[in-house]
C-alpha cells in the first residue's frame, strides 16, 4: 500500500490524499485496461472523416475521474471525483445526437441526486469523526458513540451508490442511456460509471458491513434489481437493450452480495466485478460490431450471422458463456463464490433461504438471456425472420450494405477481455493476490481467496448444476416464453415516472414563483418592509440599554443642511413634474455632498458632486423620451405610501440615533490613521484604502461598473428605446430654438476652451490621488463632465465627439487593473503594490507605484460607463418609419434635447 498527501485546504484539514491498496488496484486495473480497449475500439467504430476530439477528451477525463475516485483517500476529494464522473457521463451522453438531450438530463438528475446523498454522507462523516481522511474515518472510534449517525451515513452512501449503479428504483437511467454510442455504453457498463457505485459500497463495507439496515437494504434492493433486470433482458429484442438490463441485473447481484458483508461475500464481489467487466465489455463491443456491420441490432432482424461473422460469434459465445456462468470461464468461478457467500451467510431461516433462492433464480435467468443473445444474434431466436425489422434499431443503418466480418483491428479489442475471461478461469489461482488484496481492503481482515475451478462436491456446485438444468429448459422452451413475455409487464415505465417527476418539479417551482411574479414593486417591497417594522418594534419592546453618545456630534451648521434637505425633499415628493423632481433630488444630493465634506470626507464629497452632475445629465436624456408629468396615483395609494415612508423614516432615525455615534473611531479605522503612511507611503488614507489595502474590492467594483455598462448596451440594443416625446415641442418649429447648429455654438466654443483644462485637471487629480484628494474615481468623473459638455455641445448625436470606442476603454480598464494586480505576485500576493523610483532631470525623482496604474484602470472603467450612458441613452431614434418622417421629426427632436438640457 502506498500513500501520498498534498495539502489542499489546510484550514479544514482537507488534502489531496491518495493511496493505492488492493481494492483501488482492482478498480484502477479495470478502468485503465477496459478503457484502453474501448478507446482502441472507438477508433474503428466512430464515423470516419469527422473529428472526435471532444469524445476522446471526455472519455479520458472519465478515466481520470474514475482513477481519482478509487485512489482518493479524502472524503472531500472522493466526492469531487464522484461528481466528475457524473459530469463526464452527462457530457458524453449529451453529445450523442438529437435524441440524447432529455436522456442526458434524466441521467444527470438521477445521478446528481445520488451525488447530493453522498455529499450529506461526507458531511456527516466529517462531523462525526472529525477527519476527512477516508481510511481514518472508516476505523474511527467516534462511530461507536453515535449509532444513529452511522445508520444515516450508511443509508446515504447506499443510496448514492444505488443511483450510480442503476439499482431499483433508480435503474431506469441505464437502459435510457443506450442512446450513447456503443463504446461509451461499453465503458459505462463495464468499468466506469456503474462500477463507481460498487466501489463505494465495497470501500465502506469495513464501516457499515455489520449494520443491519445496510445489509437488509443492499440485499433486498440488489436481489429485486437483479431479478427485475434479468426478466426485462429476456423480454427485449434490441441487443443493446438486453445488455443494458443485463448490466442492471448483474449489478443488483453484486450489490446484494456486498450487502452480506462477510469476507467470502466481498471476495465474491471482487471476483464478479472483474468477471463482469471482462464479459460485459466484450459483449458490448461485439454488439457494436454487429450493429456496425449489419446496420441493425434487433434480434428479429438478424439472421444466420454465424456464417458471415464467425469470429465475432466465437468471441460473443466466449463472453456469453462467462456471463451464463458455465465452466471453465471466470464467470463460473465468480458465480460459485457468490453462491457460496449466500449459503455461508451468518443469517439463517426464511430470509436466508429466500435470498439464496433469488440468487439461483437470477443466475438461471442470466443463463437464459445469455443464450438469447447468442442464439438471437447468430442463429434465429424464434425461427422467423421479419425483414421489416431490419435496420431501424441500429446506429449505422444502411440498407444496401451486405453484412461482412469485421477487420482484425476492430475485433481484437473486443476479443481480448473474452480471452482473458477464459484464461483467468483456467488459471484462477493467479488472481489470488489481486483478489486477496481487494478483499483485505474491503473487510480489513486477511482472507485466502483460494480461487479454482474445482472445489469438490460442494453445495454451490449443486446449485450451479440446478441453474444449468433449469436454464437449458428455459432455452428449449424459449418460443412460448418469448410469446408470453411479449407484452407490457408493467402499466408504467421508469422513464415516464422520471419525466413526470421532473415536470412536476418545474411546475411546482413555477407555482411558487407565481406568488411573487409581478411588476409591481410595492409587492416585492412589502415583505422586507413588514420585517423591518417587526424588527423596529422588537427593538423598542426589548428596550436595550444604550451607552452614552460621544460629545460634540452636532454642529450648528448641520441644522442648516438639515433644513435645506427637508425643503428639497418635500418638493421632490409632492411635485408632478418629472424634471422638477429630478432637479430637487439632485439639489438634495448636493446638500448630501456638503454633508460629506463637513464630515471630513473631501474625496467622497467631490465624488458625490460629480456623480450628481452626471446623473442629472443622463437622467435628462432619459426624461426626454418620457411624458412631462408623472402618472397619476390614487389618493389611497399616496396615503399608504406616506404612512410606510413615515414609519420607515422613524425606524431609520431610531436606528441611526440608537446605534451610532456611541464609540470612538473603530479599531480598524484607527489602524489606518496611524499606519497608512508607513505602509503605503501615501498621505490620502481613503485613496490608499481603495487602491492598496482593499484593492480587490475596488477591482470587484470596476467589474460591477463595467457589467452595468454592458447591461445598458444589451438592454438598449435588444429592446427598442422609446421615441422622443416630440409632441410637446412641435410648437417650437417656428421659433429660434429649432436651429440646433447655431444654438449649440456657445457650448461648443466653451468646450473647445474648457476641454484641455478639464483634461489636464483630471489627469492631475489622477496622479495626485495618492497624497491629496483625488484618485481614479474623481478624475474619471471630472473627465465625465467634460464628455457631457462635449455631448451637449454637439449639433447632432452623429457629430458628437463622445463616439469613442467605449467597449475597448472599459475592457482596457479592467485588463490594466487586473494585470497590474498580477504583478503583485512578484512581491508576494495579488494586487500588492510595487514601488519604482523614476529619476527625473535636475536631480529630482518621482515615486511611481503600481497603485497609480491600478487607478488608471479605475479611471478607464468609469469613463467607459459614462460614455456608454451618453451614447446609448442619448441616441436619436434608430427605427423611424421612413426617411421622410425621420427628417420631419429630427429638428424637433434635436430642439427638444437642447430645450431640456
Amino acid at each position, binding site marked *: 500500500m502506498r500513500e501520498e498527501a498534498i495539502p489542499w485546504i489546510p484550514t479544514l484539514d482537507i488534502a489531496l490524499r491518495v493511496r493505492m491498496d488492493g481494492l483501488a488496484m482492482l478498480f484502477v486495473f479495470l478502468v485503465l485496461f477496459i478503457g484502453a480497449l474501448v478507446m482502441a475500439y472507438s477508433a474503428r467504430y466512430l464515423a470516419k472523416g469527422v473529428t472526435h476530439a471532444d469524445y476522446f477528451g471526455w472519455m479520458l477525463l472519465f478515466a481520470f475521474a474514475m482513477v481519482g475516485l478509487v485512489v482518493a483517500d479524502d472524503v472531500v476529494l472522493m466526492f469531487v471525483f464522484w461528481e466528475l464522473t457524473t459530469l463526464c457521463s452527462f457530457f458524453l451522453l449529451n453529445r450523442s445526437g438529437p435524441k440524447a438531450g432529455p436522456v442526458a438530463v434524466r441521467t444527470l438528475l438521477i445521478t446528481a441526486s445520488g451525488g447530493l446523498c453522498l455529499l450529506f454522507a461526507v458531511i456527516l462523516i466529517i462531523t462525526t469523526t472529525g477527519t476527512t481522511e477516508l481510511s481514518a474515518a472508516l476505523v474511527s472510534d467516534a462511530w461507536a458513540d453515535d449509532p444513529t449517525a452511522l445508520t444515516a451515513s450508511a443509508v446515504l452512501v447506499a443510496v448514492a451508490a444505488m443511483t450510480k449503479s442503476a439499482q431499483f428504483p433508480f435503474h431506469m437511467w441505464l437502459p435510457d442511456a443506450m442512446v450513447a454510442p456503443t463504446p461509451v455504453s461499453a465503458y459505462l457498463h463495464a468499468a466506469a460509471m456503474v462500477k463507481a457505485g460498487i466501489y463505494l459500497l465495497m470501500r465502506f463495507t469495513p464501516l457499515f458491513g455489520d449494520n443491519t439496515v445496510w445489509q437488509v437494504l443492499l440485499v433486498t434492493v440488489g436481489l429485486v434489481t437483479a431479478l427485475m433486470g434479468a426478466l426485462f433482458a429476456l423480454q427485449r429484442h434490441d441487443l443493446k437493450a438486453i445488455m443494458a438490463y443485463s448490466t442492471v441485473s448483474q449489478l443488483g447481484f453484486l450489490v446484494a452480495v456486498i450487502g452480506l458483508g462477510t469476507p467470502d461475500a466481498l471476495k465474491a464481489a471482487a471476483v464478479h466485478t472483474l468477471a463482469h467487466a471482462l464479459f460485459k465489455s466484450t459483449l458490448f463491443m461485439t454488439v457494436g460490431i454487429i450493429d456496425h456491420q449489419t446496420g441493425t441490432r434487433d434480434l428479429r432482424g438478424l439472421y444466420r450471422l454465424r456464417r458471415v461473422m464467425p469470429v465475432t460469434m466465437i468471441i460473443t459465445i466466449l463472453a456469453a458463456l462467462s456471463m451464463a456462468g458455465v465452466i471453465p470461464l471466470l464467470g463460473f468461478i465468480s458465480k460459485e463464490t457468490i453462491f457460496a457467500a449466500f449459503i455461508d451467510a451468518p443469517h439463517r431461516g426464511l430470509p436466508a433461504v429466500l435470498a439464496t433462492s433469488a440468487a439461483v433464480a437470477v443466475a438461471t435467468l442470466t443463463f437464459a438471456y445469455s443464450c438469447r443473445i447468442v442464439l438471437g444474434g447468430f442463429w434465429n431466436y424464434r425461427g422467423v425472420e421479419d425483414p421489416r425489422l431490419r435496420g431501424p434499431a441500429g446506429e449505422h443503418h444502411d440498407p444496401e450494405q451486405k453484412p461482412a466480418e469485421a477487420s482484425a483491428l476492430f475485433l481484437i479489442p473486443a476479443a481480448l477481455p473474452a480471452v482473458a475471461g477464459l484464461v483467468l478461469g483456467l488459471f484462477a489461482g493467479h488472481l489470488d493476490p489481486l483478489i486477496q488484496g481487494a478483499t483485505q481492503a474491503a473487510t480489513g481482515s486477511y482472507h485466502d481467496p483460494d480461487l479454482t475451478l474445482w472445489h469438490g462436491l460442494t453445495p454451490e456446485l449443486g446449485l450451479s448444476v440446478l441453474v444449468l438444468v433449469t436454464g437449458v429448459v428455459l432455452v428449449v422452451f424459449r418460443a412460448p416464453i418469448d410469446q408470453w413475455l411479449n407484452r407490457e409487464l408493467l402499466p408504467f415505465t421508469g422513464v415516464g415516472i422520471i419525466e413526470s417527476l421532473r415536470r412536476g418539479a418545474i411546475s411546482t417551482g413555477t407555482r411558487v414563483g407565481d406568488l411573487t411574479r409581478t411588476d409591481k414593486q410595492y409587492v416585492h417591497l412589502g415583505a422586507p418592509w413588514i420585517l423591518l417594522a417587526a424588527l423596529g418594534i422588537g427593538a423598542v419592546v426589548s428596550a436595550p440599554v444604550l451607552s452614552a453618545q460621544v460629545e460634540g456630534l452636532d454642529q450648528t451648521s448641520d441644522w442648516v443642511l438639515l433644513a435645506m434637505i427637508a425643503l428639497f425633499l418635500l418638493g421632490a415628493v409632492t411635485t408632478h413634474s418629472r424634471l422638477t423632481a429630478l432637479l430637487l433630488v439632485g439639489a438634495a444630493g448636493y446638500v448630501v455632498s456638503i*454633508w460629506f465634506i463637513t464630515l471630513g470626507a473631501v474625496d467622497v464629497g467631490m465624488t458625490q458632486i460629480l456623480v450628481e452632475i452626471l446623473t442629472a445629465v443622463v437622467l435628462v436624456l432619459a426624461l426626454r423620451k418620457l411624458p412631462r408629468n408623472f402618472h397619476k396615483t390614487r389618493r389611497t395609494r399616496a396615503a399608504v405610501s406616506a404612512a410606510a415612508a413615515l414609519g420607515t423614516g422613524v425606524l431609520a432615525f431610531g436606528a441611526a440615533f440608537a446605534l451610532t455615534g456611541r464609540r470612538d473611531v473603530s479599531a480598524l479605522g484607527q489602524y489606518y490613521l496611524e499606519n497608512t503612511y508607513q505602509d503605503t507611503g501615501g498621505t490620502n488614507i481613503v485613496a490608499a484604502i481603495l487602491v492598496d489595502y482593499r484593492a480587490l474590492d475596488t477591482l470587484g467594483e470596476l467589474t460591477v461598473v463595467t457589467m452595468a455598462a454592458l447591461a445598458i448596451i444589451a438592454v438598449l440594443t435588444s429592446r427598442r428605446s422609446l421615441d422622443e416625446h416630440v409632441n410637446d415641442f412641435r410648437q417650437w418649429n417656428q421659433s429660434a430654438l429649432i436651429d440646433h447648429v447655431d444654438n449649440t455654438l456657445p457650448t461648443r466654443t466653451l468646450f473647445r476652451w474648457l476641454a484641455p483644462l478639464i483634461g489636464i485637471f483630471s489627469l492631475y487629480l489622477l496622479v495626485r490621488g495618492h497624497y491629496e484628494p483625488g484618485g481614479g474615481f474623481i478624475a474619471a468623473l471630472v473627465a465625465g463632465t467634460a464628455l457631457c459638455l462635449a455631448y451637449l455641445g454637439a449639433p447632432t448625436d452623429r457629430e458628437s465627439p463622445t463616439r469613442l470606442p467605449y467597449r475597448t476603454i472599459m475592457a482596457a480598464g479592467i485588463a490594466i487593473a487586473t494585470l497590474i494586480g498580477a504583478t503583485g505576485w512578484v512581491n508576494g500576493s495579488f494586487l500588492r503594490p510595487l514601488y519604482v523610483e523614476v529619476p527625473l532631470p535636475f536631480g529630482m525623482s518621482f515615486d511611481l507605484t503600481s497603485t497609480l496604474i491600478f487607478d488608471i484602470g479605475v479611471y478607464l472603467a468609469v469613463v467607459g460607463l459614462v460614455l456608454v450612458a451618453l451614447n446609448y441613452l442619448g441616441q436619436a431614434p434608430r427605427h423611424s418609419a421612413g426617411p421622410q418622417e425621420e427628417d420631419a421629426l429630427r429638428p424637433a427632436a434635436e430642439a427638444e434635447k437642447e430645450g431640456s438640457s
Partner: protein
Amino acid sequence: MTLSLTIALLTAAGVYLILQRGMIRIILGFILLSHAANLFLFAAGNAARRDAPIGADGLAGAADPLPQAFVLTAIVIAFAITMLMSALAVTSETGDDTEDEG
C-alpha cells in the same frame, strides 16, 4: 441628532418615491435611499471627529477613513445602477410605467 434626522428624512422620502408608479420615481427614490445608507455608514464612524484623514501624522482629530472608503465605492456603484435603471426606464412599450392600472 442632526445626522440621524437627515438619514430619517432621506429614508422617508426615498421609500415614498419608490412606492409610487413609474420607473423615474423609483430611480429617484433609490438615489435618496443610497444617500441615507451612505450617511448611515458615516454615522457609524465618529461624527464628532471631522478633520480630513489626509496627512502623515497629527491625525488625532481625523475622521474614521473606513466609512469614507466604503461610501466612495458605494457612490460609484449606485451611479452605475442608476444608469442601468434609466436604460430600463426608456425601453418599455408603456413608457416608464410599472403598472397596468389606469
